[in-house]
């Protein structure tokens, strides 16, 4: 009983901290460390592309395991990391994955597939 009560009060506290329980919007996507990974990419001096790729792959497993949706640009950013390490097959594969999940990205993904071949 006391554990139930403490759980309940924790839940209430969390709700209160979030600014009231009423109609709290449910996030559309699972983000994991995606924003931090974008930041790490732009800072460029903190994590090697290989370590960044590993983080993105690990998070992708977590997103899939949780049944959540992969956010816009996730596959494409992962593909960019592979491309910068010369792994062009994986680059192309991720661009296709982005296009498949988000048809809105088609024009840009095709542009990238045409121009970043080298």
């Amino acid at each position, binding site marked *: 009983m006391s554990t139930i009560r403490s759980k309940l009060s924790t839940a209430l506290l969390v709700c209160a*901290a979030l600014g009231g329980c009423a109609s*709290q919007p449910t996030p559309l*996507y699972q983000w994991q460390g*995606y924003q931090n990974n*974008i930041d790490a990419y732009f800072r460029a001096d903190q994590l090697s592309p290989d370590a960044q790729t590993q983080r993105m792959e690990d998070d992708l497993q977590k997103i899939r395991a949780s049944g959540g949706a992969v956010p*816009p*640009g996730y596959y494409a950013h992962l593909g960019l990391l592979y491309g910068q390490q010369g792994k062009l097959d994986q680059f192309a594969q991720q661009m296709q994955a982005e296009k498949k999940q988000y048809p809105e990205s*088609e024009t*840009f993904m095709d542009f990238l597939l045409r*121009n970043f071949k080298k």
Partner: protein
Amino acid sequence: MKLKNFFKLLAAATGFLVLAGCATQTPYDYTAYKESRPRSIVVLPPLNNTPEVPASYSVLSYATRPLAEAGYYVMPVTLVAEAFKENGMTQAADMHATSPDKLRKIFGADAALYITIGKYGTVYQVINSSTVVAADAKLVDLKTGKLLWQGSASASSEEGQNQQQGGLAAVLIAAIVKQVMATTLDQSHQVAGVATTRLLSAGAPNGLLYGPRSPNYGKD
């Protein structure tokens, strides 16, 4: 006589205050926005009007989440920045000067978001110092070149934890604060996250409208 003048002044001042208090925000005219109904947005690397070099990419790294949660497809920001570089552009001003037509051809986005950073960093004062980030944004239709929306937001390290913020922005901001507390302490970057999330979350008064991937699309 002097006292009478004083009362006159006081009355005038009070009247002014009351009027200022009553003045409600003019509702934003969303006509062009609702006609355009953009599905996808390309966020250009922000124009940085501050001396802080990291400001532009700090703000940019936070832009995707609120826009995606608002229901838009957001062109991958790192690849957008790389595509500009491949075309010989490294300055945000040059990127912002690219024609809407060219942006649409390369990125295939329905709209472009132009962010300008006005303040970024710590202001040192005698008694207290505070970290402030302020930015404004314009959403432009890439087919017609029409302005669909513009807004501005700021955040400060001194505003306190109990700042009232409703809806989606509150959830996203709570996530930023939690994540940053768990990692490194880069206060400017954290405050930039709060300011960017306020600027780009849908559902706020005069804010961005929800996009087609949101269940709230068309209801605002």
